[in-house]
């Protein structure tokens, strides 16, 4: 491990100033960053520890019905907040389907948004990787790419964003509150993560020193509470990143879908909002054929980036299933095995 400077600022302003220096990185729980440092993938020369910054660990239900989640709220705390979980069940389910209990206890909201791809070549410093070393090339092309992107990828990078949490967030129009030297700005989560294009090294729109202070959900996000699910296919039953995942949230009125929200995970360098599919669904009854049409629309632009064509059909199917389960109604409690299509009955852990 290389030596680095460690700072623990007391205010947001100090943090932003300290992190604006080249080579600086924010340290939240470190569950991703410290791994990257140990593996020689990231070499920050200065760590700016944000864990003691005041006010960032607050979860506020706003008077207008929205909710504001501080960047330091721990993944587990958010998922287990009873009011939050009731109002935004798909988000709680997504959080609880990620990583392990120990990791969720530590991992933060800001860190979850900013976690880096799980492309194995990105982690293997002997490989060529444009995201790690711009211009080096991309060994994942033509390599082991079963789990890589099928949407929004470019010749320079085919990696996916691994977060579960971000998938329902993007479906529900979350907004990222950012503090920088020039003051505060807000960016819709949907445009927060960047598609690779020619600059795969840039995961997000954050500029040097910019700090995520909170993620906000608008009041309208709560209206889907009765019909919201997150589903995730993974290579084993638990404790694995998504092969593909989907968040579906419906507002159902008299048996018809008044409004639909849909997003996919594990398919692109950003949590993938499927607006075309949402349009297909609006005003329809949630019948199998309609759901399938929506799924087709969601993946209309998809193309394999390697040995991963199966993900496209799998994504269509998980979209259809997530929509069907959402239409059937949010389970009373988060299922014992979150994000599993088979644990929709409360407490039914068996064979999940």
């Amino acid at each position, binding site marked *: 491990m290389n030596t680095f400077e460690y700072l623990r600022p007391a205010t947001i302003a100090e943090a932003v100033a300290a992190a604006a220096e080249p080579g600086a990185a924010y340290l939240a729980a470190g569950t991703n960053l410290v791994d990257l440092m140990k593996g020689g993938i990231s070499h920050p020369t200065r760590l700016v520890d944000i864990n003691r910054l005041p006010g960032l660990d607050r979860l506020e239900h706003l008077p207008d019905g929205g909710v504001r989640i501080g960047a330091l709220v721990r993944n587990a705390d958010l998922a287990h907040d009873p009011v939050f979980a009731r109002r935004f069940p798909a988000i709680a389910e997504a959080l609880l389907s990620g990583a392990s209990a120990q990791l969720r206890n530590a991992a933060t909201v800001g860190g979850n948004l900013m976690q880096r791809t799980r492309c194995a070549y990105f982690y293997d410093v002997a490989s060529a990787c444009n995201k790690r070393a711009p211009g080096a090339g991309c060994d994942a092309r033509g390599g082991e790419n079963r789990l890589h992107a099928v949407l929004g990828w470019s010749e320079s990078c085919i990696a996916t964003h691994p977060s579960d949490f971000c998938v329902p967030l993007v479906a529900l129009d979350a907004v990222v509150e950012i503090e920088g030297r020039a003051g505060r700005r807000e960016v819709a989560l949907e445009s927060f993560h960047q598609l690779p294009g020619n600059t795969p090294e840039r995961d997000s729109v954050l500029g040097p020193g910019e700090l995520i202070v909170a993620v906000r959900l608008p009041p309208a996000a709560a209206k889907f509470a009765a019909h919201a699910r997150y589903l995730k296919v993974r290579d084993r039953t638990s404790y694995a990143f998504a092969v593909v995942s989907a968040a579906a949230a419906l507002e159902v009125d008299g048996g018809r879908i008044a409004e639909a929200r849909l997003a996919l995970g594990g398919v692109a360098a950003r949590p993938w909002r499927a607006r075309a599919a949402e349009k297909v669904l609006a005003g329809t009854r949630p019948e199998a054929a309609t759901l399938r049409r929506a799924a087709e629309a969601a993946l209309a632009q998809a193309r394999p980036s390697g040995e991963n064509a199966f*993900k496209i059909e799998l994504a269509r199917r998980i979209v259809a299933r997530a929509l069907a389960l959402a239409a059937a109604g949010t389970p009373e409690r988060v299922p014992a095995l979150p994000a599993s299509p088979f644990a929709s009955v409360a407490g039914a852990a068996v064979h999940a």
Partner: protein
Amino acid sequence: MSIGEPLPRPDGRDKVTGRARYAADQEVAGLLHAALVGAPTPSGTVTAIDGREALATAGVARVLTAADMPRFGPVAPPSAVSKLPMQDGTIRHEGQPVAIVLAETLEAAECGAGLVRLTIEPAPFRPQGGGEVAVPPGIYGPVTFTKGDPDAAFLAAEHQHIAEYRQPSRHHNPMEPSATIAVWEGENLTLYDSVQHGYSVQAIVAAALNIRPERVRVISPHTGGGFGAKGFVWPHEILTAAAARVARRPVKLALSRAQMYANVGFQPNMVHRMALGAGRNGRLTAIKHEVEHVTALSDDFVEMATAASRGTYASPAIFTAQKVERANVNMPTAMRAPWEGPGLWGLESAIDELAHAVGQDPLDFRLANYAETDPATGKPWSSKKLREAYEEGARLFGWRERAGRPKRDGPWTLGFGMATCSMGAFRFPSQAQVRIKADGSVTVETGCHDIGTGTLTIFPQIAADVLGLPPDKVELIMGDTRLPQGGPTYGSSSTMGVGASVLRAAENARELLGRLANLPAGEVVMKDGRIGRRGGLGAGVPIGDALRTAGVGEVVGKGRFTLPGDAPFNADGEGTPHTIRTFGAVFIEVGVDCELGLLRLRRAVGSYSAGRVINPRTARAQMTGGIIWGWGMAAMEASPYEKKLGRWLSKNLAGVAIPVNADIAGDIQIHFVDEFDPHASPLGAKGIGELGATGVAAAVASAVFDATGKRIRELPITPGKLV
């Protein structure tokens, strides 16, 4: 009677509370931490190593290269490789150690390792999957076998089945990565090491360093899982000892998880080319099984998976052959359930397909082809109750009634499958001693190992049984080459070999104590801490009194387990009138979500014919663990290999799936047929540590077929193969 009781592990609490101390936990004053610098390419020559920047790092003491190392003496198995690294500039595989940084702290060592500059002249390499195919020399016996006229028999067969079954390379991933601490005192070397057989390390390190084996002591307090990865002696153990000698300070090397991928072995990828022929009646007429797998450039490791096809079913004609593909990879090695583990994936999958083609129930098909004697040699079995195991397993599972069971449960489509389990019997000689002290305490002393399988539980149990003592009065002292030479803790061999030597040592101790108490030999009984005469009056005298009266402080009984011809190793009872194997059947229920490609283990029954069970609790744990191990092989495990770069790709547990708790069905039933095998060992026991892992992958694939109609012939069965 303590044999046969389900005693809990005495070491359980220490392990789960972190009190158990493993090799790397040993406190040694003044040691240097070592970090390996691995070759970044799979082939080529190291022409220069610049350690200046590393040496300039605070805390870095030395940067050792091939030039600093002694010239190692020749080594052969149980050295994992014959060509040791850091002797010249040749690179044979990625990750091969080319330099070692020694530092006062681990952090400094690792930092220094990252700063060592290598100049490498790269050379073309052969990747896994693009190597040179060859017929290897027969290290573990002949690599081809022919009985009858297999080609003619196959061609003439009414029913023919030809198919290829594949499996990927997989790593052992024990919880504790390998670690070694080397301490020299003058010419004497002590190694604290994480191993499955300390005496192998003693012999090989001594040979490599050109010193007498007596000068090397290997201490291995606990081993945090090995699964075969710590069976042979790997170069890093020799390098650590050499580095400590060069640096004149104790040195500790703990491999990182990533380094475990290229510095110890793995189970090689395999293709099984199967051809089975059967008559109209479903009787096998020909079994042909060819296996090809990757091995290192320098040494031929042969995974004798074809053993499965020589020992499982009656057939008048059998042909088996092994080939290797030599590539620039690190050396493969045995992994839990070697040979039959992979072999039965090929054979049992093919048998299942043939049973369907013939139109017979897979269990009936297997019963019809039951091998009453060893199919390869015609010798009688030492004991075999597989028929009972099939029947009792089928009953526990409800196999015969499965047609009446629902095939759906919500989104799940259910499928049922079964397969035969079998392992050969690797036996090794062993010695032990049992010490009875005047205070009534008893120690069993043998240089075996605790790799988590239950040796700390069952060896005291065996001695306690003989000595009529509660097992918690008996303590096992193990993991030290100064102790009587115990057999290795691999190859499912410990209970038979070490256990038998413990039995004999306890009997000998009882006899010695009886002599002190003036009791006629053969009539000594010990019970409840007392010793007396069989059928004699009264309860006898307390052990302590017997010793004190005779004026001695202790007695030490010695025991040995030897093999025919005093051989160092015996496979399957070779050279004896009997063939020794273990047997069983595994029945699996899976749920498949055909739409989403999800596969879940819902239920399993394992029913085994494996000799006498010493402790039903630890035995059940072994079999359950074996089935889970098999589930990992079936459903998820693969070590991704990067062909263009010639290296393992995901060298960590985040990128390689192995089963987690949620993958494990709550309903795994284990059954043992009541059996005593007098030929395998005087205990009547046989090896069980690997048997449970066999057959599972084929049973799973068969259950997947039952559920979906899809035959999966390539492991692992991940979502992409099912959608």
